[in-house]
């Protein structure tokens, strides 16, 4: 067995060694933190995804050790593989930040601001993206585009106005189900996710399109308007499922299961696909073996009120002085406020340096 060659790649001055064939985005994910470009359309579990949203654009300032020429344009880091000695600039490049700001503006241009009534709010990648990279206001002064409402069946609700055309759901249906029944119709800014002749989506793995959707375009009809995600508590659970792994995340409030989703990793990607039966029909605690609370990033609104990994500040002052701290200046004894002989209304203001001279 031949050893797979390792390539050295430097992203924002941090060098990491990755196997050949790794994309820049995945190399950056190995480093983690701020140097990881955001990705709205790339999904590591879906073959062929990526390259479309352009939020992960990075600058390649040095092509490779052999050919050190920089790449002329910004490249989509999710679809560009690393070369040995490549140097990449993400947040250290003004050009990248500027282009990314532009992309976020384009994505938000026609996106409705209906977060207050959107079920995705709180776990929406577009919210995170616009919070981190977007501008505070919009320069777009025209009507946002709208679409005819389309019914995708009993389980999945489609809000085409919210869609950013990442194609993730198309790849999911193509790669998980036998026959893809939905796709992108039309082109340009009136392109839409749709089915032929209003067919409903009823494959037993089609529920996964809800999990891969980065925005609120595809949401769970059985959870519709039931609760805000940050009021529900995520719990990892499993069951013996004949069709899928049965490893899920329950979103509970008290003993009530509001929603079942697949487990997601730190990049918001599904760890294991689950079937429709687990997702839509098993909504009682007795259906599940509960493993314990899920780990949610502390930056997420879902983990509000849970202070994970927060350390209490050590009390240093005892150790240093060894006795109770002494009040160095007792303001109460100096201020006029505590003098009963002075009328409060006569006090002009806070204690002044002049007040101390006479003492």
């Amino acid at each position: 067995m031949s050893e797979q060659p390792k390539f050295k790649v430097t992203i924002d001055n941090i060098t990491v060694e990755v196997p050949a064939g790794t994309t820049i985005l995945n190399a950056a994910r190995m480093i983690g933190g701020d140097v990881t470009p955001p990705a709205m359309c790339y999904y590591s579990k879906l073959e062929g995804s990526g390259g479309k949203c352009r939020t992960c654009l990075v600058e390649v300032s040095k092509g490779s050790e052999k050919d050190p020429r920089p790449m002329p344009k910004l490249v989509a880091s999710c679809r560009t593989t690393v070369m040995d000695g490549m140097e990449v600039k993400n947040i250290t490049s003004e050009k990248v930040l500027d282009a990314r700001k532009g992309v976020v503006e384009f994505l938000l241009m026609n996106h409705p601001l209906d977060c207050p009534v959107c079920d995705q709010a709180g776990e929406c990648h577009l919210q995170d993206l616009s919070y981190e990279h977007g501008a505070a206001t919009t320069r777009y002064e025209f009507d946002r585009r709208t679409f005819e409402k389309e019914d995708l069946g009993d389980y999945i609700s489609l809000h085409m106005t919210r869609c950013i055309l990442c194609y993730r759901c198309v790849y999911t249906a193509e790669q998980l189900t036998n026959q893809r029944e939905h796709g992108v119709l039309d082109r340009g800014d009136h392109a839409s996710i749709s089915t032929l002749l209003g067919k409903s989506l009823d494959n037993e793995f089609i529920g996964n399109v809800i999990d891969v959707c980065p925005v609120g375009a595809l949401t769970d009809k059985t959870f519709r308007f039931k609760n805000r995600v940050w009021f529900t508590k995520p719990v990892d659970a499993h069951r013996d499922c004949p069709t899928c792994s049965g490893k899920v995340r329950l979103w509970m409030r008290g003993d009530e299961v509001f929603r079942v989703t697949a487990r997601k990793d730190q990049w918001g990607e599904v760890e294991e696909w689950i079937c429709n039966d687990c997702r839509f029909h098993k909504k009682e605690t007795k259906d599940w073996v509960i493993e314990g609370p899920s780990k949610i990033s502390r930056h997420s609104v879902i983990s509000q009120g849970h202070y994970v990994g927060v350390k209490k500040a050590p009390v240093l002052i005892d150790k240093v002085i060894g006795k109770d701290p002494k009040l160095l200046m007792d303001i109460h004894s100096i201020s006029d406020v505590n003098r009963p002989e002075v009328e409060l209304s006569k006090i002009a203001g806070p204690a002044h340096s002049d007040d101390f001279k006479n003492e």
Partner: protein
Amino acid sequence: MKLLLEHAHVEGIRYYDTYRKHGGYRSVEKAFKMTPEEIVEEVKKSGLRGRGGAGFPTGMKWSFLAKPEGVPRHLVCNADESEPGTFKDRYLMEFIPHLLIEGLIVSSFALGSNMTYIYIRGEYAWIVDILEQAIAEAKNNGWLGKNILNSGFDCEIYVQRGGGAYICGEETALIESLEGKRGNPRIKPPFPAIQGVWMRPTVVNNVETLAAVVPIINNGGEAYASIGVGKSTGTKLLSVCGNVKKPGIYEIDMTQSVEEFIFSDEYCGGIPNGKRLKACIPGGSSVPILPANLLLKTAKGETRTMSYESLSDGGFASGSMMGSGGFIVFDEDQCVVRHTMTLARFYNHESCGQCSPCREGTGWMYKILKNIEYGKGKMSDIDLLWDIQRKIEGNTICPLGDAAAWPVAAAIRHFRDEFEWHITNADEAQNRNYGLAHYADPIHVPAGA
């Protein structure tokens, strides 16, 4: 100097017998006595550059073609000529279809493609019939099919109609469409030379490029390279439209000056109706527009000629591109704002919607330009337009984003005060519906004007 259109006006040249009588299919006879490598070498020597718009050297493109054992290779002819202002391929295919077929056979032999496709735009419905008739005639006379000229080489040519999308002129979108899928451009790499049609190595060439292979083989690469100037070798077809006395197809050897091309009677014949030249798009709608003063002379004051290098002299700051050869001429009455709006509408309509900057940005630019054109513009809109085009350009999957951004950028760069005039004199601009005349060429004032 005519190579491609040498016999274009012979009656019946569309049919095999006449075409053969005028020296047709000589290049196939000659090519089959050479090895494929020699043909590629000959094309390399000729310095032929892709005629579809980008101007990439054809010989180099051919030599990039991967040749793995046991995997078929394909040659695809890009006849999806949808660029506004470009109609040279249509002329070639409609009047001398056998020239293209001949070029295709030679190129297929050079590249080892046993199945060659012509992807033609859906709107050219009648040309499909012409091509299929030509293919049938060629097959009947033994130029196609099994064991051509006893060389052991088999070749079939198929014509595939597109659905009328501009984006399918982009080579990877064309390949997707040819495979029967939605015409979305692929993300490169891998390039078609490695993984093209059905993941097999593929070369996609423009109609005119493949037709030019015929004179290259007939006369030799060096003879072809001696025509033209510098790296602009051979002849180029230009489709001229707009405000000229004689619009149409011209074959030039790229040594003429732009001034000669527009004003001499041999070519366009000048501007009609006693008007003056205002601006020109020298290479199809997506290349930058140039005002008269920069068109006739470069920024350095040299005479601009009709070659790849000279037209792009000065970069985008003061130059343009040869592009696909769609030469659009504007006289002093034409409004640049309206023209830019029309182009923005076109690119908005034709964007495939795959990547966000192009999908959203083209529509935004169109809406702003529409506001300006119809008297609802604001001064800040001009800077906003500039910023939008800057954020589209270079950040998209395929060149359509660039093609949408460049015309807007060039119009603002060179005609900014026309935009401002449009905004401040909304009523007048709308009623007269034409732009500022002061950009017009002061030298070529027709007598009596």
